[in-house]
């Protein structure tokens, strides 16, 4: 598991939390899209929180990954 997290760059607690938030909100969002009755049952605020968590966590994770030369220097 640690190897997988390291390969995707989730080497700190903060990054692992972002990844977890992205995965969980992504699953919820997928359910809301593919089973519309579930999406319609959720309140707008819940839907938006899930959507923004998914997008926000994913983009923030992407931005915070180390720059490739930094990563190479750290591992080398």
């Amino acid at each position, binding site marked *: 598991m640690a190897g997988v997290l390291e390969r995707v760059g989730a080497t700190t607690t903060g990054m692992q939390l972002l990844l977890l938030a992205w995965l969980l909100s992504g699953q919820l969002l997928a359910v809301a899209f593919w089973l519309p009755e579930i999406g319609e049952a959720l309140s707008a605020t819940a839907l938006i929180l899930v959507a923004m968590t998914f997008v926000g966590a994913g983009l923030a994770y992407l*931005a915070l990954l180390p720059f490739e030369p930094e990563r190479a220097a750290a591992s080398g």
Partner: protein
Amino acid sequence: MTPDPGALVNSFREEVDVTVTGLTLLVLGLFVLVRATYPEQVSQEVLPAVREEMLALFGPLFAALMVVFVLFALVIIVGPWGKIRLGGEDATPTYSYPAYFAMFFSAGIAAGIVFWAAGEPLFYYAFETGDAGMPPFVGEEPGTAAAERGAMQATFFHWGISAWSAYVAVAIPIAYYAYNRGGPLRFATLLMPFVGKENVTHPLAKLVDVLAVFATIGGVAVSVGLVGPQFLSGVEYHWGTETTDADTSIVIVGITLVFIISVVTGVKRGIRRIAGLNLLLFIGAGLLVLALGPTRYIIANTAWAFVDYAANFAQMNAAALTTSGDAAWYNDWTLFYWVWWFSWAPFAGLFLASISRGRTLRTVAATGVFVAGLATLLWFAVVGNAVLYTQSEGLVDLLAIEAFPLEEVAGFATFATFPFGEVLVFGLFALIITWIVTSADTSTLVVAILGTKPGIAPETATRVFWGVLQGGMGLGLILIGGADALQTAAVVTGGPIGVLAFVGIAGLFVEFSRFAREEVADQTPEPDPEPEPGTEVS
């Protein structure tokens, strides 16, 4: 490591350009104060009247400027000056070409590309000629096949090579003077051939930078603010739910947090990667719409759209120059777009300049005009034709959707009718966010550069300050009102910015002409041995 707030404040105080930052805050503060004191008069009377008067008086000038910018880009692409390399003959590009293109393309257009690709052709196709309807040059009844072609032709005109030429007209002079003449990477550098390098940072020249910052904040903060309600229209339409101001705040605060993280991590990390993701999503969504939508119809009509656009390009520009008789349509659409692109040019152009070191002028111009223009038009062709097909074939009566602005839900309603529509709708939601984040992070970087003392690259505190200001203004304008007024004010700044861009390219041509008898490659001035610090921002 937790950032030290005291150190951040000290860093901000040390690097802030008091003139540019102070004047910008003063202008924005005055604007908010006057708007709050006289809300109706400012939003509905004064600013619209100024805009109308500006377009009535100077409309032909703006139309002419746009033609000049297109010609300028073409001259750089085909002429000998295109060989000049930014930073000198030995300079090498900092970014790979795909990353370079992704960053510029993603910065230059915000989420409007998602909404207007679906909405604009529909307006032209469905309504009578007039303020909002069919372009006067079509001369057919709304809802006909000829109207479809006219609608795409007019949409191409507004989002095609002209828009991107305005950015290139700002980017190339600034990049040339910054990398080959040792000037600072600022909007006021456009004036360098006339005022000299030492005067580009003079307090009076900084007024030009203030204009650029105001236009950028006006354009992007409003876009950040408007994207909240637009995103929520999609949620309401798709899931049949109702949203509140709190939901709007969640969206805008979320977007603001993301673009601040992106700009703080810098060009090489957040900005580059999110732009790359945005481009991949954009290409993927376009291909999916093409494959899952009315493929034959889209391909056939796309071909016609390009033929009509190319064949009538000169005629449409000439018509915009001489708007007598059809002035309302041109003022409301064409000239509005022209000054809107001008108002975005300082930030899009300055950002293009900041990532172009090591590239030839030809590459910069061709990327800006042809590659970015082609990518934009292909998206408009695919989405616009899909929407027109949906309406004309009666799959959904998009015009009957009265609860939402047409441009905000036309794409959602259309895509939901295609196979795997949920995937396409999800793609639209994702693109709305990535497009606005990629414009907001780069615009924040640009205003941070302009709000920092010349020669210093803005650090974290300055980037956060401008990011919070942009996001905060976007949220405030939506919650307490005034977005329309600030947007109009930003558009009004587009006029003088267009003139400044013309001054910049005129100065550049004068400089290039001095060496006209010599081989261009040989006369390319060597870059300063000590390049101006801060001309490359990470």
